[in-house]
């Protein structure tokens, strides 16, 4: 059935909760009758089937992620979420110091199978509701990071994450949810997929080539994957053939896929929605520059937001987020110059 990301995630969570009694959801406003099902309707209605296992909490992010940590250690499979990724900062210690480290500190004796869900993206709400936090967690050993750009991947990765014995942090994009009704987002992009009725998973750690091409590799996650595809389409007209890679998992990176593509094309652009400084693009880019410098016909190049917080003004916001045009321009320039 055709589903948007919100709907596909809802189904995947439902499936997992049905399959495994140790799965539960914990977060703010996730299962209030008459409420929203979380900030973007992902858990809407789940409380009807699983009242005990949809835990609505006070507004206490450190409490939520700490509780998820403890429950996971005791054998549960919590799915904890924040309404906006930005609020992970309020739970940062619990995520980075407890969830990510406890297993290592224990000498590998315990497990912390937490799933953490966090909506990201610059979407008309100003600086404190617009951050793409991926880069903050790229420095954190002990967690896996996934970032699905389609409904198929979202559901498949969610299931993998729930079944994974390690902590998994899943970034979702507000403009890709396809949330409906009062929770619809303006400026949304269609990320819906045909979701099989039968159980399936998408493996953590595997990227995917969204479009094959010869001249240049373009790497982008979440919204930037879609914008990269759009840019590639634009460039088709001028005879530039782009290979678009969706890493899907940011840690561990699917280096084999990435390096393989860049070996073929010799050029690479990494597209990020967040500021360039210390971004995910730095790590991906360095992996390429370190590992296959001899294949590079052009410098590894990043397209990213300016090194500022997100401005509110829609005009400025549009300049802030790399648009397909800007991505295409960069690619064109790179092909022309090298």
């Amino acid at each position, binding site marked *: 059935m055709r589903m948007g990301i919100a709907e596909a995630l809802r189904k995947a969570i439902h499936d997992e909760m049905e399959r495994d009694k140790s799965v539960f959801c914990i977060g703010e406003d996730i299962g*209030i009758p*008459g409420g929203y099902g979380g900030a973007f309707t992902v858990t809407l209605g789940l409380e009807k089937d699983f009242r005990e296992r949809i835990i609505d909490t006070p507004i206490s992010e450190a409490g939520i992620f700490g509780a998820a940590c403890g429950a996971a250690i005791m054998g549960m499979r919590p799915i904890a979420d924040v309404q906006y990724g930005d609020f992970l900062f309020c739970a940062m210690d619990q995520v980075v110091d407890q969830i990510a480290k406890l297993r290592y500190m224990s000498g590998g004796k315990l497990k912390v199978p937490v799933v953490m869900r966090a909506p990201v993206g610059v979407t008309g709400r100003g600086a404190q509701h617009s951050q793409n936090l991926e880069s903050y967690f790229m420095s954190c050993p002990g967690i896996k990071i996934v970032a699905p750009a389609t409904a198929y991947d979202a559901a498949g990765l969610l299931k993998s994450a729930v079944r994974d014995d390690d902590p998994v942090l899943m970034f979702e994009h507000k403009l890709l949810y396809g949330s409906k009704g009062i929770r619809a987002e303006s400026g949304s992009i269609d990320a819906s997929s045909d979701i099989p009725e039968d159980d399936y998973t998408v493996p953590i750690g595997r990227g995917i080539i969204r479009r094959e091409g010869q001249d240049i590799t373009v790497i982008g996650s979440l919204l930037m994957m879609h914008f990269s595809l759009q840019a590639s389409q634009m460039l088709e007209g001028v005879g530039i053939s782009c290979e678009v890679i969706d890493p899907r998992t940011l840690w561990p990176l699917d280096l084999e896929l990435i390096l393989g593509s860049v070996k073929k094309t010799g050029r690479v652009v990494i597209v990020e929605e967040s500021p360039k400084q210390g971004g995910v693009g730095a790590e991906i880019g360095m992996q390429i520059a370190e590992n296959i410098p001899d294949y590079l016909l052009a410098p590894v190049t990043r397209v990213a937001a300016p090194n500022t917080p997100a401005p509110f003004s829609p005009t400025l916001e549009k*300049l802030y987020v790399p648009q397909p045009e800007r991505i295409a321009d960069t690619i064109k320039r790179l092909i022309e110059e090298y």
Partner: protein
Amino acid sequence: MAYEGIITRIGKEKLTEMLRRMLEIRGFEEKIRFLFLEGEMPGTIHQYIGMEACAVGVCSVLEKGDVIASTHRPHGHAIARGLSMDAMMGELYGRATGCCMGKGGSMHMGDLSKGMLPAIAIVGGNIPVVTGMALAFKLRNERRVAVSFFGDGASNEGAFHEGLNMAAVTKAPAVFVCENNLYGASTSIKRALKIENIADRALSYGIRGDIADGMNVLDVYEHAKEAVDRARSAEGPTLLELKTFRLCGHSRRDPNNYMSDEEKEEWKNKDPLPYFENILKNNEIFTGEEIADIKQSVERSVEKAIEFGKGSPEPDPADIRKGLYVTMEVPE
């Protein structure tokens, strides 16, 4: 006649201002609600309809040098603190004329030069900041007060705990105003905390806790005055809980389906505006016609503000890299 004493004490001039501000908030919020639903205004909004007595009651006791901090729901506080509706509307439209030059938006409304920190949309996030603002006043021996507005939901954040405790031990001249509107987004306080009165949390910090009727601007005024006076006289911070209610959705397009009809009805009957208007009429401060005149004038100001906002220039593209660092350009 009820409220005669306080009415006399406050005096007609101030009462007029209070009524006007409350009407401005109501008029402003109703107008932009419409503009949002029409899709003409960008972003998201959290509105203050029904809570007008809180912001106006508290801000009416403040002096010029005082400072307030707000939340994701800041329009009411901004108007009550005296920000111009023009600059607010400019901000909502994301224009260069906005009080934050279009960089902030609805959730970061504020203007320090008017005594209001740009609002902090992280629930509970402004509380330690207000402690620090108050601490600055104390360190410099200034008789100024810092006021934090936040919700019932915010009182469950760690920042609330740390901020209040630190204000307590430093005896910072701060007032922590908890607008208890019974819900944090869709979550009833019954689910979020096991006590009736958030003011009782003051006991954890050894500071004063107090409660006022957040639908009655005069009651808010009296309790806020005591708290602010105490802070100003170095008697320490107060946690002041205002019992109130949202007569609107949590954020745009929220139909409040998580509230019962009886509950909505009950609180609708406590609407702070007719309540205050009646007191003023009963005490012969205003006639009905005078109030109607004020309402008309308020409506014109709101219309004017909308015109101003809509008609204002967009920020310059170069602005994106401006106003981050004082001492350097944004590095590439």
